[in-house]
């Protein structure tokens, strides 16, 4: 479970995120949306322990990220939009390295399963330079999922994937949620979020402007002017109404 209370992040005097609170329970997938510069990536980086929040409390799988960072980090995975890999480690070596970092006991079997699932088995001895961008993204995902995290943060997970990869990724996110993971997906692809998310959090200038289940968020922005009277707006309409970004 992810519990965030009063998360605030300042860069000097600039407020990147202000007083953000929300909860994502096991099995839920929360979409994090907002215009460019709304604070999505800053929020995710705070949640992943990459940057320290200025104020607020973050609880990951029951562990306070500030007070108890090691168990908290052991249960999370952060999958950045840009694949971050070590130039000199092969695919298999990346997985061995991550296995030691997260102390994954049955790592060999899990790695083999993940490589097969992500169609990287025949690339096990390849260096990142020999992989396409999509394959690098898949390797990042394999590394992130190797320790079967209870909490997963995806930052633009579909970037660089081919249509088949996109379909598999969406299925994978759903499957992880069904298996009990609490997931946050940050993306500008509202249609994708509509497909896979159970919840939505809309940010504007670092502040929450809407949040809740998809139905709740839609209901909050009923399209009263549409033909046939008031009805739930689609997510794109909801986003524009919430952020005044039209």
């Amino acid at each position: 479970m992810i519990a965030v209370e009063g998360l605030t992040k300042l860069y000097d005097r600039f407020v990147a995120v202000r007083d953000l609170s929300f909860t994502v329970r096991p099995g839920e997938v929360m979409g994090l949306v907002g215009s460019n510069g709304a604070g999505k990536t800053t929020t995710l980086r705070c949640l992943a322990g990459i940057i320290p929040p200025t104020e607020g409390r973050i609880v990951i799988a029951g562990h306070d990220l500030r007070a108890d960072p090691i168990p908290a980090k052991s249960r999370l995975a952060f999958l950045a939009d840009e694949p971050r890999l070590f130039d000199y480690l092969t695919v298999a070596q990346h997985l061995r390295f991550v296995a030691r970092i997260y102390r994954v006991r049955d790592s060999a079997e899990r790695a083999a399963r993940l490589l097969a699932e992500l169609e990287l088995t025949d690339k096990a001895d390849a260096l990142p330079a020999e992989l396409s961008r999509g394959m690098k993204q898949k390797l990042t995902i394999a590394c992130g999922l190797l320790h079967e995290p209870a909490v997963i943060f995806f930052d633009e997970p579909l970037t660089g994937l081919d249509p088949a990869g996109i379909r598999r990724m969406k299925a994978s996110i759903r499957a992880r949620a069904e298996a009990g993971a609490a997931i946050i997906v940050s993306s500008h692809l509202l249609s994708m979020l509509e497909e896979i998310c159970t919840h939505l959090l809309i940010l504007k200038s670092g502040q929450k402007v809407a949040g809740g289940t998809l139905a709740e968020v839609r209901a909050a922005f009923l399209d009263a002017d549409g033909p046939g009277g008031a009805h739930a707006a689609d997510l794109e309409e909801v986003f524009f109404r919430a952020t005044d970004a039209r």
Partner: protein
Amino acid sequence: MFSALLYLQFQQTRNRLAARLRRLRQPKYLVGALVGGLYLYLNFFRFLALGNHRGRRVAAGTALATALGLSAAAWLATLENAGALFLLVLSLMGWILPKGRAALLFTEAEIAFLFPAPIPRRTLVQFRLLRSQLGILFSILLLTLITGRFRGANGAFGIVQPVVGWWVILSTAGLHALALSFARSLLLERGVSNARRRTFTLAAVALVLGGTLVWARHALPTQALATAFDAFLKSSDPRAALFDVLQAANALLDAPPLGWLLWPFKLPLRPFLAPDVPAFLRALGPALGLLALHYLFILRADVAFEEASVEASRALASRLQSAEQRGGGSRRSPAAYRRRRDPFPLQPGGVRAVALLWKNLLAAGGLFSARALVVGTTVLLIAFVSLQSVANHSGNRGFIPIVGLLAVEFLSMTVLFGSQMVRNDLRQDYANADLLKTYPLPGWQIVLGELLAPTLLLTLLQWALLAVAVGCFLVGGFGGAGGGAPAASHGGWMPWSVAPRLRFALAAALIAPPFNLLSLAVPNAAVLYLPGWFQRGPQAPQGVEVMGQRLIFFFGQFFVLIVALAPAVIVGAAVYFAGKILGVGESWSLLLAALATALLLVGEVVVALFPLGRCFEQLDLAADGKN
């Protein structure tokens, strides 16, 4: 059309300069600029500024010529021949080695904007040449400063000669390299393969060399190059003999047909080397003519360079990005990495920091592997056996200690500069700090894990050098006889027999790992506490101010290291003298002192790891540039 390209170049240059000036408002850049400027002044500018006064005294090249008894003309001829030979070799390499088509290096943005635009190919070439002039001007500044340091500014007419001279040399060299690549492409387009081009070139080179040797055998005086060189090795007056060697070498390089081949390569050098103004002006005409010929050829050769340029620019961008991610260092292309075997089996359980050691050893490449260890040990053993054998047969052991001394010298270098040479730690991994921060490791383990690999590599290198030194001194008997005989009786400077010497070496070996750990902890601490001062990757700012920052950073680290070493050295000295007073014996005292020093150094590192770890945990990556 060209005006738009000029506008692009002008604006880019102006904005870059403006940005540099603006950043001087930040104290860290202003202080850096002052220190960098002072460094340049003290080392280079003052020798130009003092040109006709101090400059005469520091004209090291002239001093060397005088010492050798060479006339100024002979000295200039030697320089001209050597320079022309160097350019010829470069030219041959540029003609023989490359196999691809001509490529002009543009940035990815330039390719995206300019290649699809309706710009003639010739205009693109001119634009590229114009831009290369900026780099050349910067190189001229550097070279003028450096060569001014050694020749004074009192050449033909002060500063003008080196500036114009270097411009002619560098511009001609740049155009020549481009012309070679164009010519290669034209041959490929006409069906002349790389293999045929290389075969013909090598055959021509062989003919020229053969012809020169034949000529030399008939025409050179009895004091031929080989004889002169042999005389130099045996001579009791090496200066006179070196004079003969240079004279013979000059005669050989002037000999036809090699002399003919070298002649065009001498033209661009002559303005720089001209002894007076008339000679300079006389040399300038042919040199500029050669430059113009190159330029005309390049403009008239309608070579398709676009595809190769796109590939080259992409490769460069990839290298830059990779270097940026690695936090600087070499601009090796990611494609240049090779698969490496695991340095050791990494099990999923156990101390997590070991994973970072494992990763960074992989980053060190083939330097650390079981194979390298076996090969290194074998080479050392063979070398020792060979040395021993040669010494036994010749009866001359004098050269063996020299090898040992060289090893000691290199060992000293690793002690002084090792922490700056081996950088596969946080300095390299800082660019991955966001990734490292997601790992479930306490900060101190991350810092320790990052320090382990360079410590191990440096220590192994130092131990190997120590083994070489000890082996050489034992075999060669430096400072006394080998085989356990008391050295003092042989008049050596090291008043110990074999066992104490081994204890001395053991003491040094004992101190090496904790010393390396501490000396590496200092620059890593600097990265963590002053990330804004730590310049990362090829995209990092450049300039005099950054050079100054690096100087401050380097000497600051050196100072911190000395302060950090002081307690351990004091304790070590106390133990040593206590041991001597108690009659333990000198070498045993030294060993005990080393043990005490090593323990204290380890203690210091352990104490330092926790604040460093906390600093890593609290590092605000988004704000680090503001520190």
